[in-house]
Structure formats: structure tokens, C-alpha cells
């Protein structure tokens, strides 16, 4: 394989998509109106799809089911279990991925040795890890944790390697010439330069790992959010399934908008002014 990580941004950035409207001026009122119309259209399309593919639930049923899940404490119990597994696998992926990524970014030898393997990791779909770990570890906690780890890892590696390569060598030399203290060099030169890719590493890892977690819990678990959504699917209650899908989305949006986006905005402010 002659492919290198740098030739293939496409598979290393799984979700270059956000809902952000273009950053130009549009009246607040107009965009709220457009948003409301948009939600209305989604509802209409959904109702039409329901007429046709009869097993789709109605939104009212779904919201009702969300209420009973809430009342029965299912939401908190399952999210607690899942987030536990998620954080464990993700932190592992971040630590291991950061080590490998730094190695790849710094040494051409490590890059030559590891980039093909990383490509393979990027190309393998999460469902493979979910199924394999289910076969290997059965219905224990290892199945989701290992799947989360393996689905997140390659994205961390690629983006951390990119971050390391973004360290501006010329600015470091400049700092040396002015005998700038090390700590200041670290905080004023290296940190800002790598921040963008480092946050991308976390973001892509979160998206990919969350996807992996859901699949692992779907196939190989008897608890957690993925399992709970399967429970409703197996019971042929699609309103329950959809209710959980809404929660999955909400979780991703929360992590992205409340945790990552503000950090990113701060860290990359200099690029946008």
C-alpha cells in the first residue's frame, strides 16, 4: 500500500459536517423562522414516511415514551452505565492514541511503520469491532469498552500526528534566539499551534467511539443505552427506539456544543479575526 495518512483526509475525518449556518449576517428573526419551518417540514416528511412505511412511530408516541422512560428512571440508569464504559474506553484511546500520534508526528520511522496500520484502523467499520468483541468477551464490560477504544483510537492517532506536525519549527527557533523561557514557549507557541488538531482529535474520537459504544451495547450487552434501544426494537416498539435515538443525538450535541465548541472557539480565535 502506498497510501499515507496525509494523502487520505477523507477517511480520517468522518464527520466534517456541522449544522452551523454560514457565518455571515442573517437576521436573528429570519433564521429562527427558517429553523421553525425546517422543524415543521421534518415533521411533515416524517408523517408522510409513516403513511408509507407503517412501522414508524408518531412523534407524540415517541415523546410519551420518553416521558415514561424518564419516570421509570431508565434514562439515568442506562446513561450512567454507558457513560462509565464510554469514558473508560475513550480515555484509553486518547492516551494511547496521543502516544502513537506524537511518535508518528515526530519520527519518520514511526510514521512509516504505523501509518498503514492506522489506515486499516480508520477503514474498519465500528460494527466489526462490536461483533468481534462480542464473540471474544461475551456480554461483559470489556465488549463495549474495547469497542469504544478501538473505534476511537485511529482518529486520535491521525489528528494528534497532524497536531504535532503543526508545531512551527521556525517560531521555536525564534523563541530560542530570544531566550524565551521554556514554559512560555510551550504556552505561547506550541499550545496554540496544536490546539485545533488536538480538539479535532477529541471530537472525531467522541463521534466514532459513541457510534461504536451503541453497536457494542446493541450486540453484546444487557445494560446501557444501546441495549435499551435494542430492547424496544426487539419488542417491536419503534417509539421507544426513536426516543432513544433522540437521546443519543442529544448526548452528542451536548458534548460537542457544551464541552468542545467553547474550547475550540477560544483556542482558534486568532485564526478567525
Amino acid at each position, binding site marked *: 500500500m502506498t497510501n499515507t495518512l496525509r494523502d487520505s483526509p477523507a477517511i480520517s475525518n468522518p464527520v466534517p459536517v456541522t449544522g452551523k449556518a454560514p457565518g455571515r449576517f442573517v437576521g436573528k428573526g429570519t433564521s429562527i423562522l427558517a429553523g421553525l419551518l425546517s422543524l415543521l417540514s421534518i415533521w411533515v416528511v416524517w408523517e408522510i414516511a409513516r403513511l408509507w412505511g407503517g412501522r414508524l412511530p408518531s412523534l407524540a408516541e415517541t415523546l410519551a415514551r420518553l416521558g415514561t422512560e424518564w419516570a421509570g428512571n431508565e434514562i439515568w440508569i442506562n446513561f450512567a452505565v454507558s457513560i462509565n464504559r464510554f469514558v473508560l474506553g475513550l480515555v484509553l484511546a486518547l492516551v494511547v492514541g496521543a502516544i502513537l500520534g506524537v511518535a508518528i508526528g515526530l519520527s519518520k520511522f514511526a510514521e512509516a511503520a504505523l501509518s498503514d496500520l492506522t489506515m486499516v484502523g480508520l477503514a474498519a467499520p465500528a460494527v466489526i469491532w462490536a461483533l468481534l468483541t462480542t464473540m471474544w468477551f461475551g456480554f461483559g464490560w470489556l465488549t463495549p469498552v474495547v469497542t469504544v477504544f478501538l473505534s476511537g483510537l485511529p482518529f486520535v492517532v491521525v489528528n494528534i500526528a497532524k497536531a504535532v506536525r503543526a508545531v512551527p519549527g521556525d517560531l521555536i527557533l525564534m523563541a530560542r534566539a530570544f531566550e524565551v523561557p521554556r514554559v512560555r514557549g510551550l504556552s505561547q507557541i506550541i499550545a496554540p499551534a496544536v490546539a485545533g488538531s488536538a480538539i479535532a482529535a477529541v471530537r472525531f474520537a467522541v463521534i466514532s467511539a459513541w*457510534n461504536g459504544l451503541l453497536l457494542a451495547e446493541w450486540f453484546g450487552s444487557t445494560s446501557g443505552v444501546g441495549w435499551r434501544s435494542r430492547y424496544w426494537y426487539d419488542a417491536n416498539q419503534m417509539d421507544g427506539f426513536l426516543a432513544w435515538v433522540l437521546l443519543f443525538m442529544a448526548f452528542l450535541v451536548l458534548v460537542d456544543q457544551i464541552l468542545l465548541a467553547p474550547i475550540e472557539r477560544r483556542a482558534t480565535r486568532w485564526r478567525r479575526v
Partner: protein
Amino acid sequence: MVSKAPVVAGTRPVMSTVSTSAPRNGLQRRAISFVALILAVVLWAAAAWLISDNILPSPFTVFGRMIELVVSGEVFVHFFSSIQKILAGFGLALLFGIPIGFAIGKSQFMAAYFAIPLFTFGNIPGLTYAVFGLVVFGIGAGGPITVSAMVALPFIALNVAEGVRSVDGGLLRMCRAYKRPFGTIVRHVYAPALAAFVFSGVRYGFAMAWKVEALTEVFGAGEGVGFMIKRAYQEFHVGDMLAWTMFFVIVMLLIEQGLNMLEKRIFAWRKDLA
């Protein structure tokens, strides 16, 4: 992460702080990479030998299975089936994605209007697509096709929008100064500017769509790569599953590489690719 369409990985910055004591030419690089792959296979073989259970077949068993699958032609049948569905899905995605992208690029209102659906399409966990594909379409080809279309749509639409916005106002004014007719402007200014963005959208969308399509087949299909993976799982046949996974990865990387080369060729005018 909005995809600034022709995003191409950056050039290597000067790393004067780091001493790199290693390979200068491509041959050496490839040799190291090859040795690393061999080493990975050896590790795998050792683990298989230690465990010595069907649960982790040795690499030789898996390679043997791969050869059998190639010889019997099964690989081609199922990959052909999956790729056909993806292509159909991409056709749909282009059909809807290009006009939507135009609307987003030209109008603030449309941008706000499509923000929520595109965000949703782009960020729903794959599991959701797979389940709804199965629920709405059953195990036919409709599910995977629709799912690939929906996964690829936001990539294409947002890239086209970016392309429309990027069409250089200076060039359009130049066209006016030289009184070019509208058809000429579309053909020589809009079309080439957008082509690169559409292509890039296809490239990004492909990797995602390919995975979600396979996942949809895992949940319900009569043929295709995902279906074969699912069957191996149900029969608890780890060797088969690894064999199909290897094929999946290889084909994905080959197609990625192919698209990559095609992009360099078609868009030879672009400096960042040169």
C-alpha cells in the same frame, strides 16, 4: 468541522527541532512499513497460537479463507452487490445534494432552513440508519440505497454550498467586463469551481456511506458484504468474519486511493494538489 471542500492535508512544516534519523526515500519507507505489517501478522499468529481456539484463528487460516472466497467468486458477487447499492445511493445524493447546496450557498434563509436536517443526517449514529433502513424498506436493496444517499447528502450539499460561495467575485466581474454570455460563465467559471467541491464531497461522503451501508446490510439484507459479515457472526465463524473484514478494508482503501488519484488528475490546475 465544516469541510472547506478541497481540504488537503497540509504540507510538512519545517521541523528543525526534531532530529529525524531515518528514511529518506520511498523505498526505505515502504520497507519499514512492510516489516511493520509483517510484525503485526506475526504478533497475531503468536496470539492465535497461545490461545489456540477457534475464537482467534491464525492469520494463515484467515488468508486461506480469503483465497477460497476469491476463488469461489463469492467476494466479487457480494462486493459488486454492495457497491451497486452505494453507487445508486450516491446518484440520489448528487441529484438532491447539488441543488440543495446551491440554495444554501446562495441564500441565507435556505442555509438556516437546511441546517437542522443536514446536521441530523450527518451526525445520527449509524445504528439509527441501519434500523430505520430495515424497518422502512425490509431486507431489499432499498434500505442500503436510501441510507447511503442520506449519509452522503450532507457532505455533497455542504461542499457544493462552499463551492458556490467560493466562486470568486473577481472572476465574475472579469466576465462582466469582457461581456461573457451567461452560458459561458456557467461552463467556464461555475462548473469547474464546483466540480472540485462536488468531488471532494463525494470523497468524504464515500468513506462514511460505505461503512453505514455495510452496517445496514448487517442489520438486514439478502446479499452484500455486511450481510456476509452478519452471517459469519451468527455462525460464530470468526475466521470468515476476519476474512470479510480484510476484504472490506482493502477495497475501501483501494477505492480511496483511486479517488485520490483521480482527483489529482482531474484537478491538475489546483496548486494545493500539485
